[in-house]
């Protein structure tokens, strides 16, 4: 496994993918109080994982895009991460973003969340609160699900 893409001091300046990674990390830390440092501190264990911009699937040897690597050895049952629900995209966050009058309470969850995703990425863009998260989401071509394949 290559060690490309690990975040460290001053590393990754200029590489857009690495910049996006570090933007996401600082957003999680400041907005969500998520502890992602590799150092331990009072009451916090060091965060066990690091973002890698390029990973390779062990079995097929195909590129699997961004992924998380173990920064140190991890034991069975260890806590991997903790993210406040407030940073997540849900039907509730979608209704908050687009208005409860526009998205009724019983709206399909996928539909509501799709509305919000389009708003955060395309309508608001850099002004979006979620911009650092949108910045690491792949394009359709990178995911490449068959329902988008041309026949």
């Amino acid at each position, binding site marked *: *496994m290559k*060690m490309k893409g690990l975040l460290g001091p001053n590393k990754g300046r200029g590489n857009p993918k690495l910049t996006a990674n570090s933007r*996401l990390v600082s*957003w999680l830390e400041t907005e969500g109080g*998520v502890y992602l440092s590799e150092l331990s501190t009072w009451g916090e264990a060091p965060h066990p994982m690091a973002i890698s911009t390029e*990973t390779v699937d062990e*079995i*097929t040897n*195909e590129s699997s*895009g961004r*992924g*998380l*690597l*173990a*920064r*140190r050895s*991890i*034991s*069975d*049952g*260890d*806590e*991997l*991460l*903790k*993210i*406040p*629900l*407030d*940073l*997540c995209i*849900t*039907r509730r966050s979608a209704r908050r973003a*687009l*208005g409860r*009058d*526009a998205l009724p309470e019983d709206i*399909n*969850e*996928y*539909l509501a*969340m*799709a*509305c919000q*995703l*389009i*708003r955060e*990425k395309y*309508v608001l863009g850099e002004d979006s609160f979620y911009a650092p*998260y949108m910045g*690491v*989401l792949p394009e*359709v071509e990178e*995911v*490449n*699900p*068959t*329902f*988008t*394949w041309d026949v």
Partner: protein
Amino acid sequence: MSRFPDRFPSEHYTYENWVWAFTMLFSRAIRLRNLRAGERLAMVPYADLINHSAFSQTFIDARESGDWLFKDGEEEVILYADRGYRQMEQVYISYGQKSNAELLLLYGFALERNPYNSVDVTVSISPRTAAVVAANGGMGIEEDPLAQEKLDFLFSVGRGQTVDFPCYADRYPVEMLEYLRLMMMTPEDTRGKPLADFDYSRTISSANEAAVLQSVVAAVRYQLGLFPQTEEVDADIIKDKAMFRLLSYNQRMAVRHRRNEKRLLKRTLAALEKQIRNKGLDEEEVLSRAEGSTLGEVLKGETRKQKTALEDKLEKMGLPIDIR
């Protein structure tokens, strides 16, 4: 949505952007349980960077944050490791038990060894009612005296004449057997009793069972025959590493996927044939009756309207929407 044009500007809510949004949701959204408000679908930043492994048992869930002394009323998403990882090893999470077709449909990849892989086998039975016999006039199809009763029974339990069943590498569903046992009933089996009185989870009679297994064999053979190339051809394509690399990513995934489907169907076929032999259902006497009752039942050339995969997926999620 058209009521709020200022909040849904049409230059941004385009078909391409909807496709992007659903691609993100299908490949990354997680269903959280244990929330105060019950279940909820969520896209969780950071957690969704973890790649999938069918062998991972890592689960993701939500809980109220803080320890039992300091509950702050906020909820958070939490993830625990399901096994140990060495330093620098990639951490995996399971996206749920998905077949390769689903993985390819939603996430753009297929796994070489996937314990949850399955292939849908279509079983379609046309009860030989007087009308069907007339339509196939002179083809040697006999009318099934129980045809109408079978149709009524299927209707009453909410099943149609054509049913898709998932076949896994090591098992096929009991529901398929139950369905076929019903369809293969003859007056010899019922002896005048109503169809609803039988327990289809058990063998009805050896003749009935032979007919059932033979019709599954026919259905699986038919499914295999729909592929233009054989499994051996696919295996050769994959084995020739230099050539295989020249194919595009999509082509490589597609070849792996279709080969695995064929392998799985062949395994099912072998298992069925073994079962038929073991139960002694291949004896002349039993077979003749089986022959009689399978007549023209596995419909050749199913011509059901094909939906696109995305339409199908959206419809199953209760979203019969036209995103164009």
